[in-house]
């Protein structure tokens, strides 16, 4: 009885505040729902519309598949129209086209594709205005793709390689230098603003490739001092590359084989898709096997020089945390909080407003959905690039590159030309379904105004 009385009295004392409180809550809830519905409607539309690959993305995927099957002309045809569109995938489609055209020895197309990518990569503020806002708020894929630092470095490397193959050593040198600049984004500066030479040195160590090519360029530009400096830097970073960086060997070589081996890192997301990582790691993938080179059926002694001067799997692991990563992580965490909060509110409140519960959960889901990381990447990249300088008698030679540790992985070219003066450079993309034998010159080279032999 007492308890009932107490209960009644407490009800009586709250009789003025409870209805008012409920009314206020209802108004707040209504406002919250309206706010959320206004915010969520366009986001949901974008999400639903954005689900699944677009026709252009499917076309690019087909081109990538064709590339790995060694069907370069088909891949080039698929990528050419995509690379002409100046949308958010402009750089990505151009580097894809560059890779395909280089493997196809269509050097004009490869040069212009890599050059277009180079120009955008070297430009800052490309994502100004709506794209930055859109990438932060709605979907990161709205931003113009410029690649990770290792991808940017490789764009410059391939551009340099094409100039090198064409004997334009001034531009080749510039591109290799720029490749090294692009790696500075990996950790030149620490949090207190001081330069961290250790972290940059580590990155450079994984990209001694650029120094080797720089040294060769300087040799051909008759800049002995700079050539010595570049080779010395390569050895300083990687003492095991002493034979590759040998001044005399590089100077006397009249044939350079550039061999792309393996597959580059894959961009993956962890947890709920908001955090980016790269797999596999060098440890997961194991050591890089050594190539074997046969010239006219004779095995060449390349054990000393055929060492991998770059490991993109290692380089990718040095990825720097960026502002957009923080935004995604915060959105994801807030989204999780809203979902949990909405569920808790619905479960624990005596008379929960279902709209508030739904609004919080839907808002949380939308935030999480828009916090997905951008996993676009340059799929054609190799794990490493071998540089094999050789000195051969001038004339035509049949040259095979094999990897005994990887069954079935070899590539043979018949009739590669070694000039009486100067140097010839040939590019091998090692793929299981692209073993050859191929005849030199390839169809793309027989068109006028393309030549690799100087």
């Amino acid at each position, binding site marked *: 009885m007492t308890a009932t009385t107490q209960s009644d009295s407490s009800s009586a004392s709250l009789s003025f505040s409870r209805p008012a409180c409920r009314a206020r809550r209802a108004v707040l809830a209504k406002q919250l729902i309206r706010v959320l519905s206004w915010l969520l409607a366009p986001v949901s539309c974008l999400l639903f519309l954005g689900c699944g690959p677009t026709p252009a993305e499917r076309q690019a995927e087909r081109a990538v598949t064709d590339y790995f099957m060694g069907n370069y002309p088909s891949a080039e045809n698929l990528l050419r129209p995509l690379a002409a569109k100046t949308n958010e995938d402009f750089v990505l489609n151009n580097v894809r086209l560059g890779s395909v055209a280089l493997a196809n020895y269509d050097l004009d197309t490869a040069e212009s594709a890599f*050059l277009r990518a180079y120009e955008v990569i*070297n*430009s800052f503020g490309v994502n100004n205005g709506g794209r930055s806002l859109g990438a932060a708020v709605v979907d990161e894929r709205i931003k113009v793709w*410029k690649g990770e630092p290792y991808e940017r470095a490789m764009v410059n490397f391939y551009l340099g390689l094409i100039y090198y193959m064409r004997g334009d050593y001034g531009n080749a040198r510039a591109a290799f230098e720029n490749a090294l600049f692009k790696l500075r984004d990996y950790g030149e500066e620490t949090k207190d603003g001081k330069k961290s030479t250790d972290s940059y040195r580590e990155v450079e160590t994984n990209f001694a490739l650029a120094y080797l090519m720089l040294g060769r360029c300087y040799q051909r530009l008759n800049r002995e001092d700079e050539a010595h400096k570049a080779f010395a830097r390569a050895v300083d970073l990687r003492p095991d590359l002493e034979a590759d960086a040998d001044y005399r060997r590089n100077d006397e070589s009249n044939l350079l084989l550039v061999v792309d081996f393996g597959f580059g890192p894959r961009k993956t997301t962890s947890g709920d898709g908001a955090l980016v990582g790269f797999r596999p790691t060098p440890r997961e993938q194991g050591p890089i096997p050594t190539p074997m080179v046969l010239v006219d059926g004779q095995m060449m002694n390349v054990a000393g020089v055929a060492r991998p001067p770059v490991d993109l799997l290692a380089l990718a692991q040095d990825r720097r945390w960026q502002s957009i990563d923080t935004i995604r992580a915060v959105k994801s965490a807030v989204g999780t909080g809203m979902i949990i909060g909405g569920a808790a509110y619905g479960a624990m409140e005596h008379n929960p407003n279902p709209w508030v519960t739904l609004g919080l959960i839907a808002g949380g889901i939308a935030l999480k959905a828009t916090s997905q990381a951008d996993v676009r990447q340059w799929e054609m990249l190799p794990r490493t690039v071998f540089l094999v300088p050789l000195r051969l008698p001038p004339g035509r030679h049949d040259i095979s590159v094999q990897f005994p540790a990887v069954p079935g992985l070899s590539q043979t070219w018949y009739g590669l030309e070694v000039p009486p003066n100067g140097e010839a450079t040939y590019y091998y993309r090692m793929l299981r379904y692209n073993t050859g034998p191929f005849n030199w010159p390839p169809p793309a080279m027989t068109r006028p105004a393309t030549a690799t032999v100087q």
Partner: protein
Amino acid sequence: MEKRLRLALPLLILLVAGGCTNAVQSGRNTALDSMDLTQMTDQMAASISASPKVQAAIARTGPLKIVVQPVQNEMTAEVLPRGQADAFTGRVRDLLSKQAHDKFIWIMNRDAFYALRQRELEVDLGPSPEAINPDYALTARFLTLTHETSKMRTSAYLCVFELTNLNDRTLLWSDKYEVKKTAVKEFLD
């Protein structure tokens, strides 16, 4: 509040959708641009025309027979494709052809001439006895000091143009164009 939202939301959508420029519209870099091309070549053409040494040579030998070479790229980490390399010296030639057409005879680059001859005539005719040999070469060398950090990129350019006597290797005229360019990295760069 709702009214404000109704206004703010379309604005946000407009900003995201309408504010999106394409991949080649809004970037800035440290490369030489069309303004530099115009300024530099205007300056060089005016400088050659006004040079007392050039005037004296013309008075002494008549119109100068000049071959134009593409720019030599000695820049740090800056690529200069062939077309652009030709444009910088080609525009100087073009300006001088218009301004002082009676003072200069422009000779085609030898490699380009024989390549064109071979391509157009379909047979390799060998050396052309009628070809006029140039007396002077207009050359250009572009150099930079370039530095890039995770925050910015700067390039200080020195573009040197020279008119060299091919017979005695003396320098008839020389001038330079200097410019410094800085591009600051932004969000998402």
